[in-house]
């Protein structure tokens, strides 16, 4: 398995011409960048939507400038209607989860660095790789097109529970064509994700260079590999759910719609025998693994960066890989914790609860090991390192609130409140995005041949780090008070004293949103004006730092490296330098 492979057909000759080089490229590095920029575009759309939502939540009578241009129906005169709020919320969730959290850390960084880090010239199936990107782009365009249909984007949330999502426009605006486009987009996305997952698995198993034993893989590669397996098994199920939902909508079937419904005075005589709970089971069978698809690559990237900038081997490499596997496996056994109050059997609820607490164990192991890595290190606090430290902090904060939600009798009072919103934004949303920022600052020199500006990076880090805590921590308090999520305005009497908390959060949301412009500026400015980067500016050990920045078309210019060491040989006693590259033939006593 770990044999050096025959060079792939395309490897030797870089394609000429702009289109083949940059648009329809088969090069994993170009495809990785394409995914990265797709996610970057998406994250700003998603961010903008969240800012509009936060604006409307605390100033419901505000006329938001230019919003009526985007949707004269959804926001007449700039005044956001409740249905438009829900549409924005649905699009925010869908865009962020699918096109940002699933796309950037796995398909973006993974595509770029998995082949280089294992010593391969490309992914196993370059054409499949290109296809998966273009299908994903088609999915994004399909989703975004729902903004421009007459009654707007769907309002059924990113979970799209039927019957609301299944019975058509009688159940609400956006539930006509908008919801159709949503389902088609998700089905397309599944296809792209499945093709990508196959490619990642094949690449990891088949294309490792000589000496790159599984236990010498950087933890990033382990994370991408496990994530690909989880993705392969879960996106297939979402694809099925999506197709069945589409059939219920347009094909007259009744997979998810029971008999005897009257929606808005209209008797739905064309449906019978379906089960709304079936959809929820299918959706969350995908949905829970999905949150690990979002966070596992982040864990890999964070491990990689923490070890490098602590100048110290990762603490418990084996425990880290086993815990990745355990999370990947257990992630398929916990989906029911989204459904404690759904009406499913309360006995199963208890079983899911035990499994959910169990999945906390490997997560705890990872946290302890990150702390163990810092312990006794010699920390270089670069921006990448700061974001990785931030990741650990956010992961702890968001992860612990999961212990509340994992227990049915506690969840009953927190379910569907802002407690849940705070929980998943911290642990899955913001933590994963911190890993992306960390990855960006760490790998930018390799990808673009220039360094990013550290000062701007640190300003961006501080505003974001403090800001996300200011936004998402208060959500837990609101949840305990009983503040229900997915409300476009708070009219309940008991909510009135809590509105100042919402204002506080909204203002911080604007600050954090604004701070992201610093990042964007830094990213594009550095691309052209940044300081030139050497081969290995961070003194890292993995294979991508043995090749020029940016790497040549076939990564290693025909000289396939041979691997002699594990990925985190920092601070090795008796070594020439502070670190030993993976392909360095230098012999030292390797301890285990």
């Amino acid at each position, binding site marked *: 398995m770990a044999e050096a492979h025959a060079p792939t057909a395309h490897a030797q000759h870089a394609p000429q011409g702009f289109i083949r080089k940059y648009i329809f490229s088969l090069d994993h590095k170009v495809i990785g960048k394409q995914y990265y920029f797709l996610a970057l575009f998406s994250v700003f759309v998603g961010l903008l939507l969240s800012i509009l939502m936060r604006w409307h939540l605390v100033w419901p009578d505000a006329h938001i400038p230019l919003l009526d241009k985007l949707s004269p129906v959804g926001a007449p005169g700039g005044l956001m209607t*409740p*249905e438009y709020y829900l549409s924005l919320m649905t699009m925010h969730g869908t865009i962020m989860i699918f096109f940002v959290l699933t796309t950037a850390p796995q398909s973006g960084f993974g595509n770029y660095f998995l082949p280089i880090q294992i010593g391969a010239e490309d992914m196993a199936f370059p054409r499949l790789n290109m296809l998966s990107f273009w299908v994903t782009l088609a999915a994004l365009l399909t989703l975004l097109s729902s903004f421009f249909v007459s009654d707007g984007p769907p309002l059924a*949330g990113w979970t799209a529970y039927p*019957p*609301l999502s299944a*019975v058509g426009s009688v*159940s*609400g605006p956006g539930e006509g064509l908008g919801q159709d486009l949503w389902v088609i987009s998700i089905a397309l996305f599944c296809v792209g994700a499945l093709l990508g997952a196959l490619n990642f698995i094949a690449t990891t198993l088949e294309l490792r260079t000589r000496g790159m034993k599984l236990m010498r893989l950087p933890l990033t590669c382990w994370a991408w590999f496990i994530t690909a397996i989880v993705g392969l098994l879960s996106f297939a199920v979402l694809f099925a759910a999506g197709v069945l939902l589409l059939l219920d909508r347009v094909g007259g079937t009744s997979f998810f719609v*029971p*008999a005897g419904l009257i929606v*808005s005075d209209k*008797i739905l005589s064309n449906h019978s025998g379906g089960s*709304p709970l079936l959809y929820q089971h299918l959706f969350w069978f995908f949905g829970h693994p999905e949150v690990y698809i979002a966070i596992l690559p982040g864990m890999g990237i964070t491990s990689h960066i923490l070890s490098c900038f602590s100048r*110290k*081997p990762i*603490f*418990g490499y084996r425990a880290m890989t086993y815990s990745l596997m355990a999370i990947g496996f257990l992630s398929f056994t916990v989906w029911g914790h989204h459904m404690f*109050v759904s*009406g499913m059997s309360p006995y199963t609820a208890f079983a899911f609860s035990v499994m959910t*607490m169990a999945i*906390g*164990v490997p997560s*705890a*192991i990872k*946290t302890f090991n990150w*702390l*163990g890595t*810092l312990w*006794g*290190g*010699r920390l270089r606090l670069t921006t990448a390192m700061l974001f990785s*430290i931030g990741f650990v902090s956010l992961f*702890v904060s968001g992860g612990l*609130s999961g*212990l509340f939600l994992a227990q*049915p*009798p*506690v969840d*009953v*009072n927190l*379910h569907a*409140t802002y407690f849940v919103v705070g929980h998943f934004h911290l642990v899955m949303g913001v933590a994963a995005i911190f890993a992306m920022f960390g990855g960006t600052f760490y790998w930018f020199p390799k990808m673009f041949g220039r360094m990013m500006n550290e000062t701007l990076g*640190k300003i961006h880090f*501080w505003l974001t780090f*403090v800001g996300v*805590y200011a936004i998402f921590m208060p959500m837990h308090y*609101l949840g*305990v*008070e*009983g503040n229900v999520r997915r409300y*476009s305005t708070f*009219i*309940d009497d*008991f909510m009135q004293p809590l509105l100042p908390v919402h204002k506080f959060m909204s203002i911080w949301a604007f600050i954090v949103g604004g701070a992201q412009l610093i990042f964007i500026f830094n990213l594009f400015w550095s691309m052209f004006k940044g300081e030139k980067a050497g081969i290995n500016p961070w003194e890292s050990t993995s294979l991508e730092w043995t090749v020029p920045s940016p790497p040549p078309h076939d990564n290693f210019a025909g000289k396939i490296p041979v691997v002699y060491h594990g990925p985190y040989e*920092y*601070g*090795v*006693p008796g070594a020439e330098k502070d670190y030993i590259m993976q392909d360095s033939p230098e012999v030292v006593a390797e*301890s*285990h």
Partner: protein
Amino acid sequence: MALAVALVVTLITLISVGIFVAKVYWFPVDISTHGAAMDHQFLLTLIICGVIFVAAQLGLAYFVWRYRDKGDGRKATYSHGNNKLEATWTIAAAIVFIGLNFLGYNIWAKMHFTGAAPGALKIQVQAQQFAFYFRYPGPDGEFGPTHLEKVDDAIGNFFGLDRAHDQASKDDIVTATLGIPVNRPVELILRSQDVEHSFFVRELRMQQDIVPGMEIPIHFTATEEALKHNGGRYEIVCTQLCGLGHYKMRAFLQVMTEQDYEKWLQTQAAAQ
């Protein structure tokens, strides 16, 4: 920079925990017989998570400050880890997490593994876009059948009753407020006319989705505490995204003494 990280992380930790400890924000009053155990389980979880939270965050803060690169040429400790430590915290985490879960088992079992007490007051709850309506069986103790074609919201026939022909429907009482007597077991039968909804009363510590095509029973007893606040009136809110009016979908729970309840029910029956 290391000091700044340490200070900010510490500060965030202390403020976050402080607000919980000071109970600045807390659950609303509990008016149910089962709620105290839930609140206790929450508190227990909060304490355990709080300790882990503080330890992990302060540990992080301390390590970042303590092991910063001072430029003194000190080399990092070369260690690949410690299997004993790994085993210790794996086992410790497993015991704490799963043990905590088992402590809450009884609360859940009482709520769901047994039905309502015999003689519990049965009330049907029907959710629809965007309102709740309630049906009491009347003196015969029976709910009349629903006829889909009879459902007419404009004249208040939300349950599709045919009072002219169905004996059991004649004395059914349909209301828009959920009136219940204090100290008496109540069984709600939840059903939905159109899409998914949810029944949530914060003070009752009760949340249950309402699924079209299913009839889901839940049971509870309201305590005397209920009469002491808000005149016994509490919000029932929908917590499952059900469409554009989701945020406004609510009804009121009115807890009354037994006598007041009987009187109220008479008035409601007269208005049918």
